[in-house]
């Protein structure tokens, strides 16, 4: 594998350029698509395992730890059984460690054992 060494990338006229760090530091460091009803990881990056904790709750575990716990996470539940008017998109972040984090279904929502996905942004250890 070869490595392209550069400080900035930009368009051909060099009108718009950004430092390479804006690409490397702001790219997704972890992602997952998880079907809790099986349970099964349908697609992932930097994810060693997912723990099905209870209905609607699960923990992620990373292969490459994050450097600190001040990372950004985005998660989403998709209640496929109630697609349409009752579609549910609710999740809540619990404990967050450099090795992984916990997700909880929001109370009073229904039938959470469905597809969920998430991404992590931040610095890898």
């Amino acid at each position: 594998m070869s490595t392209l060494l550069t400080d900035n990338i930009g368009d051909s006229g060099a009108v718009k350029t950004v430092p390479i760090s804006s690409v490397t530091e702001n790219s997704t460091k972890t992602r997952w698509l998880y079907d809790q009803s099986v349970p099964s990881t349908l697609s992932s990056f930097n994810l060693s395992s997912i723990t099905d904790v209870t209905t609607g709750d699960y923990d992620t575990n990373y292969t490459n730890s994050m450097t600190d716990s001040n990372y950004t996470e985005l998660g989403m539940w998709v209640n496929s059984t109630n697609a349409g008017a009752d579609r549910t998109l609710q999740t809540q972040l619990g404990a967050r460690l450099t090795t992984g984090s916990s997700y909880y279904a929001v109370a009073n929502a229904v039938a959470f054992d469905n597809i969920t996905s998430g991404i992590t942004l931040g610095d890898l250890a």
Partner: protein
Amino acid sequence: MTEVNYSEYKLWERELIFKDLNKDLPEPQYAIVWEDPRTPDDPMKVTVPSPTWLAMAMHGGILPPVEVYWELKKDEAQPGFRRHTRGHLLHETPPVPAMTEEEAMEYLIQKDIPPHVWHGYQGNRQIIRIVRRDMIPTNREYRNAWRIKQIEEDLV
């Protein structure tokens, strides 16, 4: 095609390379079912590896020894921890050789499940088991009441 020497790359880079060379990875055969003795009223938990991680473990030469993760967890448990300063251990420690799927599940227990579950527990219940995934109930209606059955022949 020459074999990739994964140890030349950082851990996260190894997964990128591995995924590029290995598509349509099979689902794992096994799952880990476990109960946390510190929260005995909670239902049984089910930990399943990602297909990519499992394939990397079985390929060998990619994942660091599990002790590296223990070291990082020790650092994170220190009062006043702000960020890892020994992350290089993930990338520079010589990777472990190929594992069987069973060995990979044992590695995963030591990496992703709290140590008080798999080490030093002295109660009478069986609180952790590696089981075939097809032994996990597909009907989740009573998911919040799942427990590990305490019968040798019928573990879930």
